[in-house]
């Protein structure tokens, strides 16, 4: 068992991948973040594979899964909540079975990808923000609902190379039910909050972009936000040494939200003509960045969001979200996932697999895309890895075709 006692562990419970989790903190349940606490409290042992809801041996379950895939005309690999190694295995399985690959977070991932593929963008990473950002503008998000330790690890840090962390200007622009208290500085300076509902962000953000590029706007307000306030915000961004414009794709969940994201990123592009600013896309979970990236280098294309109905079989992987299940439908479902999965109706086949960063090693991309962190096993597993299970299924499939 690869359990390392002396190193810090990396927590894969959200896209922030905090890698300062000590073994003592795990064993004494003293982790400061709720998502991490729930993750490390998971019980993942003592669960046997199932076929049709009845306990089965691993070999029986693998055979059953392979048989379903052999019969399938249009399989779909979905959920895909795993790490880079799991992603490699899933893409390999998709090649053997001519399956499409998608992810739990496909809709929020593809919202960002639409912008990247249409216009490109200008973005930064956490260590740059930690050391440089003097103005942090969060648009439609409080970040902390997704990445609880963002302010602790990146914003209100003890020291930075090129700025005074405690003097940073924190601004929230729009969003529903935000928790803005983490934006209060260590000296007690409250953040600026510009209220508007998420649904009104399209108008408000396009006005901000227009003001940054000095387009004349005659209206006195947009969606209840005064133009003077937005004009002041535009000037703050222009005057910043390193303005950081943050969004979380999942929080911009409305029709054509990619156009809002594009207005954010094009505001950054406009700012960078004269001063310095960068975009920062946060949130992320379930290895969404890892799966999209690995899929891209292995296939040359990003992940897909295929129509669910056109598939007769679903291979479902939910390692970081045990409660997540595919939408009920007529598909045969093969779950290769969390031992602590909860089923309303038993899937055709269930094979529990080890969870990278909990009871097996792995590697995961952080939400900002450039940093990849090793995952360690913090406790022993009795389930095989996803890679091992897929290798067994592929061996059965090969045997059939030989």
């Amino acid at each position, binding site marked *: 068992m690869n359990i390392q006692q002396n190193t810090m562990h*990396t927590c894969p419970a959200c896209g922030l991948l905090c890698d300062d989790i000590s073994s003592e903190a795990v064993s004494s349940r003293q982790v400061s973040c709720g998502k991490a606490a729930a993750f490390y409290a998971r019980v993942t042992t003592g669960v046997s594979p199932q076929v049709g809801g009845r306990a089965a041996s691993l070999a029986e379950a693998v055979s059953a899964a392979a048989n379903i895939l052999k019969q399938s005309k249009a399989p779909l690999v979905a959920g895909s909540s795993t790490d880079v190694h799991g992603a490699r295995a899933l893409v390999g399985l998709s090649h053997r079975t001519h399956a499409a690959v998608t992810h739990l977070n496909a809709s929020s991932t593809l919202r960002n990808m639409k912008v990247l593929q249409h216009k490109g963008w200008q973005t930064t990473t956490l260590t740059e923000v930690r050391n440089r950002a003097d103005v942090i503008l969060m648009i439609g998000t409080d970040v902390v609902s997704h990445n609880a330790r963002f302010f602790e690890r990146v914003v209100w840090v003890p020291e930075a190379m*090129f700025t005074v962390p405690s003097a940073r200007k924190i601004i929230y622009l729009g969003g529903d039910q935000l928790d803005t208290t983490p934006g209060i500085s260590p000296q007690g300076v409250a953040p600026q909050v510009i209220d508007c509902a998420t649904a009104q962000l399209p108008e408000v953000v396009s006005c901000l972009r227009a003001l940054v590029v000095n387009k004349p706007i005659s209206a006195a307000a947009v969606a209840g936000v005064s133009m003077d306030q937005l004009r002041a915000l535009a000037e703050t961004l222009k005057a910043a040494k390193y303005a950081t414009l943050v969004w979380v794709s999942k929080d911009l969940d409305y029709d054509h939200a990619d156009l809002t994201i594009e207005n954010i990123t094009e505001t950054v592009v406009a700012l960078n003509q004269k001063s310095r600013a960068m975009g920062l896309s946060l949130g992320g979970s379930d290895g969404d960045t890892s799966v999209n990236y690995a899929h891209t*280098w*292995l*296939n040359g*294309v990003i992940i897909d969001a295929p129509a669910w109905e056109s598939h007769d079989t679903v291979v479902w992987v939910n390692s970081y979200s045990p409660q997540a299940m595919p939408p009920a439908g007529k598909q045969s479902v093969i779950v290769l996932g969390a031992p602590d999965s909860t089923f309303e109706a038993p899937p055709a086949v269930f094979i529990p697999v080890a969870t990278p960063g909990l009871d097996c090693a792995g*590697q995961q991309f952080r939400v900002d895309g450039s940093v990849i962190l*090793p995952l360690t096993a913090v406790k022993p597993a009795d389930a095989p890895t996803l890679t091992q299970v897929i290798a067994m299924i592929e061996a059965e499939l090969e045997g059939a075709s030989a």
Partner: protein
Amino acid sequence: MITLLKNAKVIDPAHGKDGVTQDIYIRDGRIIAKPAESEKIGQVYDLNGKIVMAGAIDMHSHIGGGKVNIARMLLPEYQAMRQLEEPEAHICGANCSHLATPNTTDTGMRYIEMGYTAAFEPAVLAVNARQAHMEMGDTPMIDKGGYAMLGNDDYLLRLLSQNADQKTINDYVAWTLHATQTIGIKVVNPGGISAFKFNERRQDLDQQHAFYQITPRRILQALSRAVHDIGIAKPLHVHCNNLGVAGNFQTTLDTMGASDGLPMHLTHIQFHSYGTEGDKKFSSAAANIAEAINKNKHITADVGQILFGQTVTASGDNMMQHLNAKVANPKKSVIMDIECDAGCGVVPFKYRDENYVNALQWAIGLEVFLSVEDPWRVFLTTDHPNGAPFTSYPHLIRLLMDKTFRNDAFDKLNLDAQAMSNLKALNREYSLYEIATMTRAAPAKLIGLHDRGHLGVGAAADITVYTEQADKEAMFAKPDLVFKDGELVVKEGKVIKVVWGATHTAKPAFDLGIEKEIKQYFDRYHTMQMDHFKISNDHIAEDGRNHVINHTQG
């Protein structure tokens, strides 16, 4: 089992052999001396005088890492489904992006089909090295390796601004090679990527960095000295300041003097050989650059030839790519600042022969190739995918070997560009021996791969067999046979067996005491643990396909 290649016409510049007919014996992946009569020969290939060279080595090709993967994402309008054949279909889906941005399987397959058996990723961001290795690990058929980028990382810039001694810098450079599992050190726009983060838009060689008050020249001195002192073979890999700017040849000439005579490799020098003459204030300075390379024996260079067509440029140089984004085609680009370590800029380009600047870029690259006298000091690259995809190498080789073909191509260029180039006055035609030098023997020597790039006893049996043809593009596009580590993997230009290659590294000795300082820096300023920055051999070998080959240095 012993394999015999009989009646090979060997071109092996490392041993001065130019068309010598001989037999080659292979056992356990290595070339061996003629075995005793009593030993059994398992397999015999009678080559009947076919041309045999070592496997080719691409010493500068962007094959893996963050910016390469962004490039793959950037042109969905060029995606197409392909019909793949076995065994490629076994390990790859039918999807692909543009041919300038192949997926990892596509990369390995297309390289080996041309007789290339190794490629080196020249811009591994230290903090992103894990991704570069994952992608290279998923690249079949060929060996891989990388050069780690330093010189815009705040750790080194802080050391230099604090007047740290050379030993400290040497230890940091050696530590970086270990931590990132790389074989060389690269510097991209020294100081410039960092300066861009402070809102500077240009960084000249002798201009003080806006924050650290040190010059790029000082960075080049310190790093070229460190690379020399720690004793790795690969000279400092330098992407000069002022990439792509008219008049930048002077920066390039000045950069040659920045290492105090220590070896330096100037990469994609075509993009750094521009003058300001003529109506359009953009001209060829290839003659000045070639003359300086000929004179300065401590300098090597690869060309970064451009060829016409659609590509996506991917560079660590976000400062200059931010300027280049104005001429992106299609109009989109990705610019990133990364982790107080580096940056990147990904910009699609369409090089067109009717465009004055593009046409002259094409001519400048060829002028450099034909005017640098020593094929051991100039390397055949397109800076894949920045000048053109690596799959255009056979075409490029024909341009170098066939003057008529080259001049016919020149005649089709933008007329104003023709008037500004002396290409037609250059009569040189490269020989097979010179091509073998610049694509095999010289890159192996430069990088320090003692057992690659030649066909002597003890060499790894990476071997390419060609039928000699008048049409050199056809000859180099489709070798008859390719052996990787002694196994026949390509027959008549088609892959017949999938292998996975290895990752080459250099791990010179250093004082581990430096790690205490580095850890302190990570703890104070970074968002990750230093221990997690370091990549182990096990991580390279994960998923069972790849392994590390470390090359003893000095």
